[in-house]
């Protein structure tokens, strides 16, 4: 066990066969985040529908809250779950060295090579403990989108009390677009993420059981 644990902590070292790919805190924060993001996006779409930024509305069958007040209640409740869970995830990701170990470095040349391999069906998913370059890029990207969606959400929520933040994002109206685009990035990531979970079913097992 001691050998495995220290081995797991070694930089860029793949976990030994039968070892834990995702520690409990990753799995727990992942699934809490999944629920929080689903509630935030579904209620956010209902809120969007009250005053659309683009010439379309989301079908009500895929929104949460039933009407604006209900959607706002969900949105401003799930935000606590999203933010607190997100902060725990970021703190542990940095403190344990997992981000440094798993997500960097991410090199453009490797991204291109891995993307090409992925689309031609040649990318190996044998070792789930090591992320390929496309994975690293997507995970870093969605973490960034998560930070942006929260900051822009706060900027829309408190454009007077926290007006410096709102100004940083280009003002109230601009912050609404930033918030929407960050949501779109997260929704887009989620589609790829879920598709890949079906393409590589053992990755789904790993985020549930850890192995």
């Amino acid at each position, binding site marked *: 066990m001691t050998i495995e644990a220290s081995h797991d902590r070694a930089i860029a070292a793949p976990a030994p066969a039968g070892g834990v790919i995702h520690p409990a805190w990753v799995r727990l924060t992942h699934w809490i985040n999944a*629920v929080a993001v*689903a*509630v935030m996006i*579904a209620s956010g779409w209902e*809120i*969007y529908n*009250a*005053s659309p930024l683009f010439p379309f509305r989301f079908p*009500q*069958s*895929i*929104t*949460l*809250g*039933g*009407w*604006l*007040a*209900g959607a*706002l*209640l*969900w949105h*401003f*409740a799930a935000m*606590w779950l999203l933010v607190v869970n997100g902060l725990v995830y970021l703190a542990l990701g940095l403190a344990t060295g997992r981000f440094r170990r798993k997500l960097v470095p991410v090199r453009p040349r490797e991204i291109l090579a891995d993307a090409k391999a992925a689309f031609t069906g040649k990318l190996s998913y044998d070792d789930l403990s090591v992320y390929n370059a496309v994975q690293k890029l997507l995970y870093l990207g969605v973490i960034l989108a998560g930070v942006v969606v929260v900051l822009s959400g706060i900027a*829309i*929520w*408190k*454009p*007077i*009390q*926290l*007006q410096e933040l709102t100004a940083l994002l280009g003002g*109230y*109206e601009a912050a*609404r677009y930033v918030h929407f685009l960050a949501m779109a990035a997260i929704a887009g990531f989620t589609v790829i993420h879920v598709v890949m979970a079906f393409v590589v079913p053992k990755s789904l097992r790993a985020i549930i059981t850890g192995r």
Partner: protein
Amino acid sequence: MPRLRRNPPGVDPKLLIKDAAKLMPDPTRRLFLRGGASLGALVFLTGCDIVDSLSAERALIKVSHFNDRVQAWLFNPNKLAPTYPDSAVTRPFPFNAYYPEDEAPEVDKADYALEVGGKVDDKKTWTLDELYALPQETQVTRHICVEGWSAIGKWTGVRLSEFLRRVGADTRAQYVWFRCAEGYSTSIDMATALHPQTQMTFQFDGQILPRKYGFPMKVRMPTKLGFKNPKHVMEIAVTDKYLGGYWEDQGYNWFSGV
């Protein structure tokens, strides 16, 4: 409070939610999360059909009250809403209400008498001319609607804090409550009532406040969402009693600060 147990097989949870709504003990109590649609997505997301509307709603309302406290804590009484040049005013300024524009209340100037009640020393009513005679100032600020859109307007009137001082209001009281001509109401925290940009508004964009924007008086507060800015105000009361409001009682967050 009735609760739904696990649905028997073949029972539509949406119909059950409707039944649950009928079972509510207080017939005046509205279900904030309207209909089955409110839970449809959640049932889909969690695969859980035993969550019922009422317990979900009660939990959400608790969080909303918690959010009231967070917002009151975040509220800085000295922080001013950004102001804009006249050229930034949105023209025409959007009309928005729960009634169509041609059904906006008509208040007669000659009959108007603002009632003042609750924890104040002087409960005399105020005519429009008396109100117009108070010191006025103009603000060009952004109005932010709970729906998400915003528009910049130019409002002229008397600081509510100045009016409250003149009527000898107990500013240690918790709330200021407003009653409007057509039955609308809302209430705000005392800190917001005393904010320098919270204004009893008599003019919009240099003109006597038109009927559609709340003649003869609206209360403008750029630090709160639009629905907290009542139009056609007939009565102001200072109180320690939580009185909610028209939209707040239907599930909108009470503090709704921005």
